[in-house]
């Protein structure tokens, strides 16, 4: 399968499904659900095809993005049109990258590609959307609209992770908002409209920051003219190369761009102090949407940080690293403490997301670049691992909360209790996944936390100690929750049915992955993801070192 077809189908199939669903008569609910499930399964299968292509031995796809970008050139990508004639020399070889001109006047390309970082998230998106689609089986209100929007959401999430052109990235990023808004606002809980508009405005506000940063990068013209690059590009790979190997983007600009990107993606992540939309959105959203929101949408914030904020503004990142790390640690502690105070099961899980996403921020920010960024690579690997691990455990947690809410019609932790006896399978799955989220050794969360704390220790000891101590808080609220929900005896909930087959089908992959990622981190994820992480880290480290050595060059070259 050629790259163009494969990469396009990854986002196009859900989109086609989303339109196709609209043409099925309202009464045929099962057909609607079937088509949606088929679309998500096909998408997931395609992500696996891409994965197989990526990890195949001697695959040309596992080369760095930069190397592949050189093979895939858009010919005649001049500003003034005439871009009809183009060939892709690399078309014959499947290297998971595609480039076509889209709006030549602004040098905008239809530019998709995957490396280990995006591939891991694409896989996660594919899996979570299948599971969420299964979890949506119980939706009975306006089924057609729901599944159409659901598939549109899946399409846009895929697009965000696939795009290597800032314009395309932004388009997909924004398209995501609308289905999410409606999914919360129509199918949500009692305060759904408030939660939905809050989500929409926060995210739109964040995207303004991102757009301004993108425009600054696009129009910035450096005093340094020797690079042969003159801006006016949305090409992420090319801009990363420029930022890391030349002093094209000056120090001030990088600081500004970094701050804008950071605020923009922090809103999405979310990190303290921009997190307040998250608990509302989670509490009001229907279960499958919560799964998507926690499992994938939050990762878009982290992905933006890893793909854009750090590589495009390494100097700015280095300057702001310490405050950002402090924000990360504060988010970890704050999220955990607030989670502890919750009585609403879903809100608790939502705040635990804030806490976990703090590890992502921290892992990115611990920029100890000594030794060619060896320790920093731990941090970024940890951040990525946390995104995947959290994607799996939080999806599971929201799913499990949904299961109990469906049966007991309450999420109040003080009212629940004794469920382990009543629903043993449910209890076992819950305990495993909650432990995975807590970071119990042998489960997926642990690996991520260890990596991040290890990197933090080599960066700043007090911060590392604080972030490590947060594990106690995490254990505190998770264990306390498990105790309140599952232990003890309950007359009230006697006779609640255990997991159905459909729910077991959803739970099994999550349980398996939670354990597998904890026991076999190397073959499962790190072996193919960390080379890409290492490339990113190298690029950031090189870019940041431009600040010391490159500053002289810049001045020298602009002096005469």
């Amino acid at each position, binding site marked *: 399968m050629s790259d163009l077809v494969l990469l396009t189908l990854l986002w196009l199939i859900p989109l086609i499904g989303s339109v196709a669903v609209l043409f099925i008569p309202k009464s045929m609910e099962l057909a609607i659900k079937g088509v949606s499930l088929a679309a998500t399964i096909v998408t997931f299968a395609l992500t696996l095809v891409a994965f197989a292509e990526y990890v195949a031995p001697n695959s040309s796809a596992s080369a760095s993005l930069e190397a592949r970008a050189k093979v895939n050139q858009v010919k005649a990508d001049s500003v003034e049109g005439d871009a009809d004639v183009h060939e892709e020399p690399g078309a014959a070889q499947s290297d998971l990258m595609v480039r076509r001109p889209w709006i030549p006047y602004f040098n905008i390309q239809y530019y998709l590609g995957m490396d280990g970082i995006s591939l891991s998230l694409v896989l996660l998106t594919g899996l979570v959307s299948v599971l969420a689609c299964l979890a949506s089986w119980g939706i009975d209100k306006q089924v057609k609209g729901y599944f159409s929007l659901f598939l549109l959401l899946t399409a846009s999430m895929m697009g965000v992770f696939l795009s290597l052109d800032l314009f395309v990235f932004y388009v997909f990023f924004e*398209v995501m908002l609308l289905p999410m808004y409606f999914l919360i606002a129509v199918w949500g809980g009692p305060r759904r409209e408030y939660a939905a508009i809050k989500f929409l405005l926060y995210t739109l506000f964040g995207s303004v920051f991102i757009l301004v940063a993108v425009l600054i990068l696009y129009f910035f013209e450096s005093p340094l003219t020797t690079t042969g690059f003159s801006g006016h590009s949305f090409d992420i790979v090319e801009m990363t190369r420029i930022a890391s190997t030349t002093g094209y983007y000056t120090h001030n600009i990088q600081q500004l761009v970094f701050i804008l990107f950071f605020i923009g993606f922090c809103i999405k992540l979310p990190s303290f102090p921009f997190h307040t939309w998250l608990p509302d959105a989670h509490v009001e959203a229907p279960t499958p949407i919560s799964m998507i929101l926690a499992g994938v949408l939050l990762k878009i914030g982290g992905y933006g940080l890893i793909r854009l904020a750090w590589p495009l503004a390494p100097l700015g990142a280095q300057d702001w690293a310490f405050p950002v790390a402090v924000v990360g640690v504060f988010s970890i502690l704050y999220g955990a403490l607030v989670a502890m105070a919750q009585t609403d099961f879903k809100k608790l899980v939502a705040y635990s997301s804030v806490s976990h996403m703090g590890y992502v921020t921290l892992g990115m920010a611990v920029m100890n670049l000594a030794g060619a960024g060896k320790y920093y690579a731990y941090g970024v690997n940890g951040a990525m691992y946390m995104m995947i691990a959290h994607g799996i455990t939080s999806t599971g947690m929201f799913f499990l909360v949904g299961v109990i809410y469906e049966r007991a019609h309450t999420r109040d932790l003080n009212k629940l209790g004794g469920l382990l006896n009543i629903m043993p399978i449910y209890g076992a799955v819950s305990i495993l996944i909650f432990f995975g989220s807590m970071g119990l050794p042998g489960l997926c969360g642990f690996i991520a936390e260890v990596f991040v704390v290890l990197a933090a220790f080599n960066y700043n000891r007090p911060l590392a100690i604080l972030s490590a101590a947060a594990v106690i808080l995490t254990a505190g609220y998770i264990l306390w929750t498990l105790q309140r929900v599952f232990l003890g005896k309950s007359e009230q909930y006697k006779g609640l049915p255990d997991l159905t087959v459909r729910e077991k089908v959803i739970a099994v992959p999550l349980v398996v992955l939670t354990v597998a990622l904890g026991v076999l981190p190397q073959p499962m994820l790190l072996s193919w993801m960390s080379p890409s992480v290492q490339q990113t880290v190298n690029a950031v480290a090189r870019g940041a070192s431009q600040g010391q050595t490159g500053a002289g060059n810049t001045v020298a070259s602009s002096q005469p």
Partner: protein
Amino acid sequence: MPPTAAFTINFRDFYVLAPEIVLALWGLVVLLYDVGWLRKLPNASRQQKLGWITLLGVFGALIAAIHALMVRFNLYGMQELFNPAWMDFDRPEPVIFWGTLAGDLFTETINLFLILMLLVAIRLSMAWSFTDSWGEYFALILWSTVGMMLLAAAEELLTLFLTLETMTICLYLCTSFEKNKRRSAEGGLKYFVYGSVSSALFLFGLSLLYGLTGTTELYAIKMVFTPETGDSHIGLAGNVSGMTALLLMLVGFGFKVAAVPFHQWAPDAYEGAPAPVTAWIATGSKVASFVALMKVLLLGLAPWSNHMRDVATPGWVGVVAALAAASMTFGNLAALAQRNLKRMLAYSSIAHAGYMLVGVAAAGYSSRHSESAGSVLYYLIIYGFTNLGAFAVAAWLARDKDSDDISDLNGLGFQYPGLAVCILLLMLSLIGMPPLAGFFGKLYMFMEALNEKNPEGRLTMLWLVGLGLLNSVVSAFYYVRVLKAMFLRPAEGTVVAPAGPAIALPIVVGTVVALGFGIYPAPLVDLMKSAAVPMLDVSGELIGSSLERAMWNRARRAPTGPPTDVKLELPASVAPQAGSTAPQAESTPPPLLPGTGKGQGAASKKGGGMGKGAGKGAGALKKKGQGKGQDASKDAPPSDQPKTDSPTKDAEKTEAPKKNESGSDDLKKAAPKADAAKP
């Protein structure tokens, strides 16, 4: 126009105005048909009949407009087909009727889009019966369109003012056409009172400008203000009368485009007017007024834009930037509080005017005038079509519920999901959500605003753009309210009947435009970019006809020397004209036949200034040069003029300075004679 010149009218001038003429005459036809044949019929069937007849005329104008573009781009061999001897396509002049109106790619494009919007608006007017006087109504709408089209074509201030008034007076009347509603009459009166006051101020501004320059023609005004050496951006420092003229004119334009603080009429007039009229005021009139604004500011008053390429200096760029910031912010914040759909759209259109003024300010300060102006044109077109759709929703509610609050939309998404999705896309395009055209238009405009080499103004522009983007977040809040009503609320009270073709048409057309040009904007971007070049370019004939007077005035204002001694030379900015014609010829997309089309037009423009033998402009110049008594026929080329044909075009570029000299020699010769002719 000096009375001394004995001009003859070229028939081709009428031909270029064909769409306007068709519409103007068709207005009479509609009126007479109504009085003559339809008097007896009941109101509703009269409306339908007249509506279809009106549409017939609009189709005629549409064909004329498309025909003009087809000839220009030489599609299907149209140029040979429609090129009889009397039509003179070999030498298409960029201006017609002695330089008062433009007839170039730009006017043809704008005419096309205005007629398309008119088509939609007229069809929308047939949705329901809000008045009895249908003949008058349709005639006035047609005539207002004639005003708009001529306004967009106006090349000099008097024509500009007259066409502006033609347009607005028709719209004043249309606003108060819903005679059984108090708010309609109230809206019309407010519109009229504000409009006439601002027109008076505008006219005062124009008269000051005339007093300062001695000419009403935009290009000549520019020439008078352009210094002979140095940066042509001189700004307005210390020029009190200039500043007064400028501010007064901005009051007039600010009123027409509904920019803060001249916007107070807009919410009332928009709410009061019948929805189709509101749609037409908000789209057609805004498009035409913005075009006129850009022409006056970017062509005539370009030297006053700013001082030394900085935004925050005395000059109109600073004022326009302030208006833009105020309009965006105020429009959006005020729209937040609205419960009435039309009023909400009125405030939002104020905000959109603010966004577009950002583009105008950018075009003023940057060195890429025409590209920036092209982005504003793109935005205008997208804005026009999406807003027509949005007002059609208001018409739908007014027809079936006799009220147009946002809450009247409740439950629409469940009753008419198809149209509701279209409305959803329209609203998202108005917010500026990708991948819709509203987003691309906004981004395109903002990107052009930032696309300027010199760093001084850029920071200000970045702030302005940032403010614009933040404002679009604010706007999301109230547009989403429409979506919320449609999709989240159950239906209540009377249910709206199916839309019918009259109301569905604008909504669907708007959606198609928003979606199509959002995903694939390239063709419209190219068209608008090439259309913006002639909009802001020099009109050749003007050099011959009135530059001389302008130069005389300038010489008189000069501190040294009596007018007879002063050396009259073409200002320095004419010389770059030779250079500026080259990109223009390139940017016209399709290849043109040698010796025809725009390339030749550009050459003949130059020829007009430099004394091209066959050119009418040169003929005029020549006549003046040789004195008024001589009865020189225009077809007999004077023998002492150098012939410039298209094969020598390339050579001309290199010879430009020399030609310039010869041109100025010509003027020098002309000067004393003209002087003597003066009383």
